[in-house]
């Protein structure tokens, strides 16, 4: 019966893929759309995942295998041009001219990383030895060696947290949640590759909320000798030797700090992707902090929107770790099933004969 119901998922990143996997398990027909050629979204750009350094490619392949079913139709390299609603169907007009009908719509358009050039005081785009966490991950992914712009092995590397997060100056007051643990992970990966290097993390607070995060943070200090300094970097400049001079305040000692470093890594936060903003505008969805999509009610109906038949999942709702994204996607799939009238088998009434009795006699 479910095969007559069609769900269109906009965005084939981890959230979209997981929703598709769960719905197809229950025999719903799913059309999965993405502007890119490949499924996987930001996962495709990651080398290793926190907190266990598992291989991002392995996870992606495992997820892709689950999608290899006749119920799932992937349409790559398309964008949504128009969405119209009638009493019976939702019609999605695609950029390649296709018109797709749906009984429910799932928005999984995700996030984009903060453009670090907007924090002009850090000189990203100006000084070659200032890179982002996303670029460092690409370097790990391509198994390239960490070098400064003039080919030297960096002796000192500074990782700066909260770039584009918790920052009123750039309009993002929220925490992006994953940057702290990403910094810990990447700092350890740097130390594994460059054991002689000094690695400093400049943070506002260490937000180690997830399973295994706190333990990794401790390991970074105890085993890998990474130095964590509580204080925001105020600016970076280049000195005569081509090194970066950074200024910060160590708020634990209450003293200003100035140091030279070979490489500075900016831990860029999350912002709503262009696709997420487009969906908000196109579907007139409510906004939450930072321009992410607001789900209908926070706790009990966390994936429905103010538009009947339209659901949201993953980081288009706000900054989320990968594990939270996948959990949210499964929850969203359940809400879609409920909306489409899927009857979840009721618990069979156990007959008196089948009851197992525990008896002390």
């Amino acid at each position, binding site marked *: 019966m479910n095969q007559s119901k069609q769900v269109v998922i906009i965005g084939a990143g981890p959230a979209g893929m997981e929703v598709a996997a769960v719905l197809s398990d229950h025999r719903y027909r799913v059309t999965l759309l993405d502007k890119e050629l490949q499924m996987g979204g930001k996962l495709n750009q990651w080398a290793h995942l926190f907190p266990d350094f598992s291989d991002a490619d392995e996870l992606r392949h495992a997820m892709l295998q689950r999608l290899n079913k006749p119920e799932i139709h992937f349409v790559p390299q398309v964008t949504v041009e128009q969405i119209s609603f009638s009493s019976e169907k939702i019609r999605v007009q695609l950029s390649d001219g296709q018109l797709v009908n749906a009984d429910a719509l799932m928005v999984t358009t995700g996030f984009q990383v903060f453009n670090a*050039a907007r924090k*002009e*005081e850090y000189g990203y*785009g*100006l000084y070659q030895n200032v890179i982002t966490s996303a670029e460092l991950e690409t370097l790990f992914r391509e198994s390239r060696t960490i070098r400064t712009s003039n080919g030297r092995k960096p002796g000192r590397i500074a990782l700066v947290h909260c770039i584009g997060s918790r920052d009123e100056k750039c309009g993002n007051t929220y925490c992006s949640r994953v940057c702290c643990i990403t910094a810990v992970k990447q700092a350890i990966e740097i130390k594994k590759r460059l054991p002689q290097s000094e690695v400093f993390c400049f943070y506002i607070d260490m937000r180690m909320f997830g399973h295994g995060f706190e333990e990794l943070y401790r390991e970074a200090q105890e085993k890998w000798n990474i130095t964590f300094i509580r204080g925001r970097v105020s*600016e970076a*400049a*280049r*000195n*005569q030797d081509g090194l970066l*001079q950074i200024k910060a305040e160590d708020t634990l000692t209450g003293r200003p700090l100035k140091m030279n470093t070979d490489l500075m890594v900016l831990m860029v936060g999350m912002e709503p992707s262009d696709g997420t903003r487009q969906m908000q505008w196109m579907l007139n969805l409510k906004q939450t902090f930072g321009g992410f999509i607001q789900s209908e009610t926070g706790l009990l109906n966390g994936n429905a929107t103010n538009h009947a038949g339209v659901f949201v999942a993953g980081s288009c709702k706000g900054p989320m770790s990968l594990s939270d994204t996948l959990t949210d996607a499964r929850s969203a799939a359940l809400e879609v099933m409920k909306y489409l009238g899927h009857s979840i088998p009721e618990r069979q009434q156990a007959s008196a004969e089948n009851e197992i009795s525990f008896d002390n006699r």
Partner: protein
Amino acid sequence: MNNNWKNYQKDISNDHYYYARSCIRQNFFPGSETAFLNILQKDLQRDIFDDPKHTTCTGIGYHSDIVPFETTMTVIARQFALMTEAGYSNFVPSCVTSFGLYSEILETWEHHPEIEAQARDYLWKATRREFKIPENLVHTSDLIFHFREEIARKAKFRLVNAETGRPLQVVEHIGCHYAKIFPSRGVGGAEFPYVLAGMIESWGGEVVDYPERRHCCGFGFRQYLVMANRGYPVANSRKKLESMQPYQPDFIVTNCPGCSMFLDRWQYVIAEQEGVTYGEKGMGIPVLTYEEMAGLVLGYQPWDLGMQTHQVAVEPLLRKMGIPFREEEKYLDRNGKSISCPEKPSFLIA
């Protein structure tokens, strides 16, 4: 190549400005405002109205918490009324703090029309005057920047070592209130301001990019107005001077009254306190206003520009640029009468 400044452009009208002077520049660098008027009016043939009726903007009092915002707004409303009465719609203050304050008030009024209405009411009750909001508010350094290529075409001297042909190495320093309050109102924004760098490049010099380039000179009113805090301003200037020294700059140029004075005068204080001097042969790094820099480029006589009042002697720079000058006229006024010669300090003796 840093092109970030290109993201920050501002409208700068080509002509017809109402000019507002600074209340301290005529003491610190007495020839600069006259040089500005001469350059704009005589060399560039532009209409700049220097109105004797205008007053201070109250900036120092406002930032020192002794003049309330309502009073400051009313005084500034009066300046705008004078501009309106004189038939102008473009406003150009000479002081960076004034520019910041005018910008702050216009921004306040834009977001709070009720506060603008209140300022209009106060002004009417106090003076029976009315005003129009300026169509274009720019700082005087914006105007010199705007005409930098025209000035380059009229240049008699360039920012080049006349003997070696090497571009002069110039440290540019921007006053905090120029763009750090409202980055979009400054040419080049707050982090990579281009207003002075553009002049330097157009006139043949090279900008020194040193680590403490964006650091404040230390002039902050709350620091230097309190005698006990003055060590802090000196420390800030010292930090900058220490940072720029290895780049061997030929001179410093700034667009703020306070920065010009501090970076110049503190060199003497540091020399007296610590015995440390900067610049070539320990003779100090000359500090120029942008009007003085433009004036030298256009062939103005250094003593007509008021450069004899600098703490750090400018003669080595003048020789470097190949600018002829008469040493014996340094301390003569326009009528050839002596203005008296300062005592020679222990350090920085030319």
